[in-house]
């Protein structure tokens, strides 16, 4: 993230007034990852270019762990790579390679700008997920490589589970409403 960038829950962001709700409960921690690196390609040529670049692609609506990032396959030609700010190198390198590459190479899906990204964890997680989402997200039903493109906290969202936690990606303009719904609809402390 550059110094000039502001995410919704940052000071000066669109949802700054709601941001105190992030750290409010110890049985359900909600952390904002909207500023974490990610890179998405969409449209004709996306899957081919990524395969040629050595990224192993899972089946649609599945995720896989690659070296340095997680690959979300949202559709045949709709792929988002999730990076980690602690080790962003692999993703940064791939982005740079894509920028420099001639077409056809797909088109940016702008997920880093379009999506807010929240990470949910804690004792009350399963209970909260059942309140917020109609899809059965319990680990016994929702396999680790599963992706749910569904409704979450009353908005369209992508939901994945990594390491027991849940991560949701949704319309960044709805950040304030979603966090409020997570807090008010995700169970009463």
């Amino acid at each position, binding site marked *: 993230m550059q110094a000039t960038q502001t995410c919704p829950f940052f000071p000066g962001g669109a949802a700054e007034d709601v941001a105190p709700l992030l750290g409010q409960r110890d049985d359900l921690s909600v952390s904002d990852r909207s500023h974490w690196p990610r890179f998405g390609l969409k449209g004709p040529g996306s899957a081919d270019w990524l395969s040629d670049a050595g990224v192993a692609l899972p089946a*649609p*609506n599945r995720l896989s762990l690659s070296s340095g990032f997680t690959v979300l396959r949202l*559709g045949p030609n709709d792929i988002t790579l999730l990076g980690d700010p602690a080790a962003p190198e692999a993703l940064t390198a791939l982005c740079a390679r894509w920028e420099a590459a001639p077409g056809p190479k797909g088109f940016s899906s702008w997920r880093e700008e379009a999506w807010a990204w929240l990470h949910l964890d804690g004792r009350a997680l399963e209970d909260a997920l059942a309140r917020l989402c*109609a899809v059965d997200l319990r680990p016994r039903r929702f396999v680790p490589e599963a992706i*749910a*493109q*569904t*409704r979450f906290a009353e908005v*369209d*969202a992508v939901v994945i589970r990594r390491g027991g936690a849940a991560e949701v990606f949704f319309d960044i303009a709805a950040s304030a409403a979603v966090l409020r719904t997570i807090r008010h609809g995700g169970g009463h402390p």
Partner: protein
Amino acid sequence: MKLLSCPLNGPRNIEEFQYLGPLRGRPDPDALSDADWARHLFRAENRPGAMLEWWRHRPSNYVFLAERHTVTNAVIRTFDPSELEPGA
């Protein structure tokens, strides 16, 4: 709530979907008379029985086809538009 099985996302509550109307023939606009084109636009057959319909899974913006029985409301099958037989 009814479940609809999306070819991309699997079975989901029908509230995740948008109904986009029946699959209609696409006649050549220039080959039809005004009256026939008006008929094409405004008159639906609405015959009871199995019907092919367009549906969209909103969260993934995926458009697909469903064959649904308009009397029983049973969904017989759903499939990607690429599987549509030519001429259907």
